[in-house]
């Protein structure tokens, strides 16, 4: 029989808290942005996250899945989740409708090391759905604008229909405290006014001071390869390239082992890893 602190046993880490969908907006054919809020004000008060962290979302009867927090901790009160229909839980969540109640627990994961990144330039490179976790970092930096030097955003998608947070990101083009570079690989109906090309093409439009910049990247696996090549070419040290990894997760708290990569659990040691960590881990991409 074990001598264990009774106190630790009162807090069941698998128990989701009750949440409500406050608002939802269609982003693409299969992706929606949800604004959600804990039902209990004390839970709202207690919830504090870092950009890059995620929550475990529960829909009764279908299970749980990890979803990045797409809003910045500087905007307290509600939480944004940008969710693509990919299977049982995400599909069920899309079908819930306004005011529906669901479960959520977290925040989990390490998040971006913002304390270390502050005082530097920030380069955000996103592809497709990868904009979701980076949107949290983007607004964190913009809301604490004085803590960062130059901020550059590069975001690319397949075409304009896949573009997330369109209005919000297009409006950033007019701000002079951030350089916003947006691209679509294919302009399907001639309506796109920005760059047509790959996200890596956007590097031609930006001056980068590699030694004083942190690059945060998130996107589909193929994107990592080419963006990292570009960054290394520009002289980025591997420790200044931050990537967000996706793995299957069942618990989110380092017990179920589904997300293990080499020595690490993506849910506890990640999902944010430097490129240096990543090349030293197995089965990484």
């Amino acid at each position, binding site marked *: 029989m074990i001598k264990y602190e009774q106190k630790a*046993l009162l807090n069941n880490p698998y128990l989701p808290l*009750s949440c409500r969908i406050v608002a939802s907006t269609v982003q693409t054919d299969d992706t929606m942005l949800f604004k959600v809020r804990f039902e209990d004000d004390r839970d709202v008060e207690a919830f504090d996250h870092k950009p890059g962290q995620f929550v475990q979302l529960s829909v009764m009867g279908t299970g749980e899945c990890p979803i990045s927090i797409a809003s910045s901790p500087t905007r307290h009160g509600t939480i944004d989740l940008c969710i693509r229909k990919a299977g049982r839980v995400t599909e069920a969540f899309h079908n819930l409708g306004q005011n529906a109640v669901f479960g959520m627990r977290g925040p989990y994961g390490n998040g971006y090391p913002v304390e270390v990144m502050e005082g530097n330039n920030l380069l955000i490179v996103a592809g497709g759905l990868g904009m979701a976790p980076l949107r949290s970092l983007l607004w964190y930096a913009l809301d604490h604008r004085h803590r960062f030097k130059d901020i550059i955003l590069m975001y690319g998608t397949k075409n304009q229909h896949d573009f997330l947070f369109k209005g919000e990101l297009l409006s950033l083009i007019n701000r002079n405290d951030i350089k916003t570079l947006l691209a679509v690989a294919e302009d399907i109906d001639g309506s796109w006014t920005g760059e047509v090309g790959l996200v890596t093409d956007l590097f031609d439009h930006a001056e980068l001071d590699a030694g004083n910049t942190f690059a945060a990247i998130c996107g589909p696996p193929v994107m990592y390869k080419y963006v990292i090549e570009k960054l290394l070419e520009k002289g980025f040290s591997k420790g200044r390239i931050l990537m967000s990894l996706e793995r299957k997760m*069942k618990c989110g708290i380092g017990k179920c*082992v589904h997300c293990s990569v080499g*020595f690490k659990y993506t849910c506890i040691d990640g999902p944010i890893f430097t490129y240096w960590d990543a090349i030293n881990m197995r089965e990484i991409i």
Partner: protein
Amino acid sequence: MKIVKLSKTNVFQFVDHLKSFGEVHAPQRKGKKSSAFQPVKDNSKLLLSDENYTRTILPIKKYFHKPIDTLLKFSPGKGFEDAYEEEEAKVLFGVHSCDISAILTLDRVFAGKYVDTYYFRRRKQIAIIGMSCIPDEYCYCHSMGTDFVEDGFDLFLSDIGESYLVKVGTSLGDDMVSTASDLFIDYDEKDTDEYKRRINEFPTLFVTKVDETNLPAILDMEYKSEIWEEMGDRCFNCGICSMVCPTCFCFDVNDELCIDGESGERKRCWDSCLFKSHAMVAGGHNFREKRSDRFKHRFLHKHQEFMGEFGRTSCVGCGRCTQDCPADIHFVGMVKRIKGDIACVYEGNNKK
């Protein structure tokens, strides 16, 4: 440590006494040769140290991290609720030191930043009474340093012939002994001599020995070795090695709906990293696509990654995986082959 002596003629009486501390579970025959921890109804069915039983089919992790465990109940009206129901206290009688070591390892896994409340609530409810044993051809606990435990038991019974020396590990263990004080006597010098003789002789009883020194470093070098492909071809990915392993703990979580279609339960069940779905993410991408990837993953997680995380391998040398593998994979042979000691991997044709 408090140590007293229990004559073998008093063992059944002591087991009866233990029933006042909880339902006693102990190893009893399951099949012809196999055994399992089961509730004790008839003391004469107990397998004691001189019964020459080595390992139960499933280790005692089944009591703490259940094969299927209901975590939560849910319903639209009440939301999610903890489904843990306090079970009656249990006493596990006759646990071998490798299995006790394994529980100490699982304690570390389920503790940490997020404490697994299901596991630890049961840990508080279940007493462990250890018992010494004699190794068979699959055991290699001595090589893994788990043949002797100083912690993790309430009582530990070491066979010294006509009687057991009983080590008292916790205050609960002390209660068990002091409330039946007429069953116990003090040990004398002759008992000490016999105990010493037996523990000194113990290491010589092992047929299977392995030296895992430097294995993590060697595994780094052998990451791309053809051994993994070869083992991947041989392994069925049946997952038996994970299920029977006292330190494998992966699980899957699923919701089950009631007939009303709204309320239900969230359950976890044992999983295996050898199953194809283990690392598959939405969209069908699999981070460990090949059988060899998955075989390698289990091996490295046990013998290398645990080393990095907890400072020891998670294998306690109980021999279950090798004994039960239907593909006849000999895991000690694997270690030796990777270390470059011998050329053969499977030497298990003489199994059962």
